[in-house]
């Protein structure tokens, strides 16, 4: 028997494990439209309630309500919907191709498609996004060529990254998409340096970076926030809180004690917490942070509150650590379904057009995959081995030259 006053080590555990009923009653949200929208130039000290709330625009019926409604034209919403659907169709197809052995690895954005789609459309050309591996919709919203994605995933002869990177760790400078890495968090500070450079030059370019809620425990997160705060860097720093870091729930990163948006308070930065399954809310908060940065008021931290509906990657089986049906019960719904419902309610969309769009996108994805397969799937085709030795330095030194010769190329 422990003594009554003995110390106890607390190890957080999620509300439900496999085989147990799903529980989300610990989550407490305001109604859509309830959170007031302050001026984007308001002093940080007046914004300290926001990190503990949740900005929502779309209500349960699909109406856009409240001060945060960005009042977007239909064509913008349809662009967003198309990017989200394309992401989902593409993910579904490429995930299955990995299962068929046509590539080594894949990661889906399922349930998080509103984030990249909305933010990609809010941010301007010349701005730079410092992505995680779950924002494919950023590229989809900017019409990145599907064949380039497929060729990168197959590491084939036409791979734009020349077979040097794991599938889906893209780099697309012309699309405002910084080079991805499998090390989580290590580019968060680059976004701050990039934004500092823009300010140093007197330009008007902004950066936007993502980090997962699990990775907020890394020093990179706190270093980046410190620099962003100290130098008032024109950047938008986003924590994608999708509840799960592989098998560790958000509580292991500190979610039981506070919100991730609230981390901003200690740095004197505004922290917004937003329903990230709500395209309009993501749009509005990003636009707010963008205006603030452009007014030389510095950085904003946005917690994108969402749910990782798929496994971490093709190497993961989430039924081993969370209830199999947890995603279906996510209280903030599915981002695609919610935007679709809103568009239908507005009279701008219907089931038939939705199905037609899915079919058309499926055809596009199939064509891109076929094109990639004709070049070759992983192992069937690859760039010249010479590419292995290129780009280590601007000019190769003698080691590279000799080793290339040693390999006989």
């Amino acid at each position: 028997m422990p003594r009554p006053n003995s110390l106890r080590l607390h190890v957080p555990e999620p509300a439900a494990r496999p085989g147990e009923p799903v529980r989300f009653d610990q989550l407490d949200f305001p109604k859509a439209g309830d959170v007031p929208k302050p001026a984007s130039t308001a002093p940080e000290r007046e914004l300290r309630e926001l990190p503990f709330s949740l900005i929502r625009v779309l209500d349960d019926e699909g109406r856009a309500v409240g001060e945060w409604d960005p009042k977007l034209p239909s064509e913008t919403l349809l662009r967003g919907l198309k990017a989200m659907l394309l992401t989902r169709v593409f993910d579904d197809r490429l995930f299955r191709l990995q299962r068929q052995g046509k590539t080594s690895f894949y990661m889906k954005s399922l349930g998080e498609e509103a984030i990249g789609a909305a933010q990609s459309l809010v941010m301007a050309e010349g701005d730079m996004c410092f992505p995680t591996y779950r924002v494919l919709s950023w590229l989809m919203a900017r019409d990145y060529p599907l064949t380039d994605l497929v060729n990168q995933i197959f590491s084939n002869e036409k791979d734009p990254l020349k077979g040097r990177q794991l599938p889906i760790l893209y780099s697309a400078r012309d699309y405002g998409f910084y080079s991805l890495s499998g090390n989580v968090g290590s580019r968060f500070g680059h976004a701050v340096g990039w934004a500092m450079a823009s300010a140093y030059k007197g330009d008007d370019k902004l950066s936007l970076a993502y980090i997962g809620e699990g990775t907020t425990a890394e020093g990179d997160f706190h270093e980046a926030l410190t620099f962003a705060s100290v130098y008032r860097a024109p950047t938008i720093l986003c924590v994608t809180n999708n509840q799960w870091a592989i098998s560790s729930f958000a509580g292991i990163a500190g979610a039981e004690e506070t919100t991730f948006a609230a981390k901003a308070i200690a740095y004197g930065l505004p922290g917004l917490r937003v329903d990230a399954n709500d395209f309009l809310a993501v749009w509005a908060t990003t636009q707010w942070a963008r205006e603030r940065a452009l007014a030389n008021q510095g950085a904003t931290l946005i917690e994108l509150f969402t749910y990782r509906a798929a496994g971490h990657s093709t190497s993961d089986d989430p039924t081993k650590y969370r209830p199999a049906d947890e995603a279906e019960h996510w209280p903030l719904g599915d981002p695609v379904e919610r935007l679709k419902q809103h568009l239908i309610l507005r009279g701008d969309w219907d089931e038939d057009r939705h199905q037609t769009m899915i079919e058309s996108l499926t055809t596009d994805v199939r064509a891109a995959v076929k094109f990639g397969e004709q070049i070759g799937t992983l192992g069937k085709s690859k760039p010249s081995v010479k590419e292995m030795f290129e780009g280590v330095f601007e000019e190769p030194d003698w080691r590279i030259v000799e080793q290339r010769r040693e390999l006989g190329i």
Partner: protein
Amino acid sequence: MATMNMIQALNSALDVMLECDPDVLIFGEDVGYFGGVFRVTDKLQEKHGLTRCFDAPISEGGIIAAAIGMGAYGLRPVPEIQFVDYILPAFDQLVSEAARLRYRSNGEFWAPITVRSPYGGGIFGGQTHSQSPEAIFAHITGLKTVIPSNPYDAKGMLISAIECNDPVIFMEPKRIYNGPFNGRHDQELSTWANHPNADVPTGHYTVPLGQAATVREGRDVTVLAYGTMVHVALEGIAEAGVDAELIDLRSIVPLDIEAIVTSVQKTGRCVILHEASRFGGFGGELSALIQERCFYHLKAPIGRVAGWDTPYPHAFEWDYFPGPGRLARALHAAMEH
């Protein structure tokens, strides 16, 4: 031309680059108003403005991350890490990001950063102000690592590093900032005043990265050294009384392999001298390269004189430090073959 010590030469290089390239900027701990704990950035903020040379939070990882982001934007940042002993929190940024950005993005992004950092012992700095970690950088493909040994090289190589489009670790031998040091710690301190390499042009010039310098020609044995150890080597050679050829590598990566091979094939013997501890040190790589390329020219086993395989000790600094006496013994041993 002006007579400069290494601090003045480095300061002059930064001054010249701030003047001629608006994309060059400097930041680091205490480098702004105060001018750096070793005064290398003295008066640069006053002369060039607050945003050209400014203080950074005590956050080495944050400093290098910000520098990489600035480099990707198009600037040429020259961050300072106050002592190289403190660079380890930034190691992930250097290894996983700076060194690989160009490669993994197929040239879409790169990090033209120059990380200046004082290194090395001989100043009673104990474990945390004395280390020589060049080998761990040399092992990281994608990084360049250079170490000047005198004011002329320091300025010319720093300008080359800043103008280089690859990330460069620029290690500054702090023991010789104010004067060459021959390893005789009980002797009076010397200054750079009468040293031939302290005559430094005041304007822009470069010393290329990747070219060794022959400091002393000789027939019997090659001594390889860099940084502070170049001066210790001269003293050790004098003590041994052998006709040694001394090569100052100046640059660890890229390495001037031709200069090394030419010299060792001529002399048939080689002794490597560095401050870093021996096991896994850069001397091991040098030794392997020479063995691969000069085996049939060698008359004696390749010698290594280095710091002992202990942490850098405080009270035992001069027992640890590979001074001229230890080099002289190694040279005699080589000459016995």
